[in-house]
């Protein structure tokens, strides 16, 4: 495809330049405001996502199977660079997608596993039992999601996993104050 030609206004200062590239996308913005009853693009996108929600269960099945497979690889080969990255990635994807798939309560246990891997300086010291507990919790919360008390059980389980993980991480990072601050640190700064 033919590249766009960039024209930019450049102002040069002592140690930096301020560049204002031509905004070629501005012409796609309409100043005409939406009127009540008009087709809302956000609502349309939400409806499109809802229309594919029937597939979310099988997608979540696949993600949980993948997490289980990577757990087994860690148990078989130990925490190598490759097995560790794949396990982290599988947990990280569940953390990010569970709510979209309609299973938000699964995300916390997956997040705890991500923290366990990310903040342990020497991953070979991670007890495999703790990995098992996380993976089993993720799968159990998902499997039992239709139970009436599923949300409460998920919260309890995730909270306990997080406590045990934090105890381990604080011990493992006792000589790394910057990491300790992150482990016990504040909430996300990203706006909703």
């Amino acid at each position: 495809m033919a590249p766009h030609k960039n024209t930019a206004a450049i102002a040069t200062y002592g140690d930096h330049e301020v560049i204002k590239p031509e905004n070629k996308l501005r012409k796609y913005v309409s100043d005409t405001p939406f009127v009540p009853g008009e087709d809302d693009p956000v609502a349309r996108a939400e409806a499109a996502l809802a229309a594919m929600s029937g597939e979310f269960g099988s997608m979540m099945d696949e993600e949980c199977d993948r997490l289980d497979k990577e757990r087994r690889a860690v148990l078989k080969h130990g925490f190598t660079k490759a097995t560790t990255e794949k396990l982290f990635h599988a947990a990280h994807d569940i953390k990010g997608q569970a709510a979209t798939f309609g299973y938000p309560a699964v995300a916390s246990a997956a997040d705890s596993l991500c923290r366990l891997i990310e903040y342990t300086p020497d991953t070979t010291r991670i007890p495999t039992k703790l990995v098992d507990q996380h993976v089993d919790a993720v799968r159990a919360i998902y499997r039992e999601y239709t139970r009436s008390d599923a949300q409460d059980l998920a919260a309890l389980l995730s909270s306990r996993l997080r406590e045990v993980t934090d105890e381990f991480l604080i011990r493992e990072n006792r000589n790394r104050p910057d990491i300790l601050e992150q482990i016990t640190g504040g909430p996300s700064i990203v706006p909703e």
Partner: protein
Amino acid sequence: MVRIDFNRLRFLVIDDNAHMRRILRTLLHGFGAREVYEAEDGAAGLEAFTHYIPDIIITDWAMPIFDGLELAQMIRQPGANANPYVAIIMLTGHSEKKRVTAARDAGVTEFLAKPISAKGLYQRIVNVVANPRPFIKTKTYFGPDRRRNVNASYVGPERRKGGKADLIRQTALLEKVRSPG
């Protein structure tokens, strides 16, 4: 809400997770976009960027070969590709402060934390289309201005040097104390 003619925008979605690519494609088509290209890792994403010249890139952070951060750094090379100013929206499960700062310093335009929502994605797209920030080029950085707005209560030195560089006037604490009223 700002109205955008989505069917004239060209998107590139880069994510190694097929499910997430499908969700993003569904949302973008829902907004009205027609041109949505996909790549499943950073290397394929860079190739697709060169080939399709998208208006907006939506990329994951953690990916094989090279990740979304490295991809952003490769794209933000003035003179090295067709559009180093392209809008980059980073979509990721990482939302910790150090991660957001790292993405900002790599030249990412907007940051969107998972779980994704139609509203959140729409707002980020509106920001990059309707209100793009100027770019700043220094010895160590090239990318969108990392100062999103003027902080009237900021106290401290102006870090940008030279002539009219003091575009954002910052009052030192001493001056504030001395000034009447």
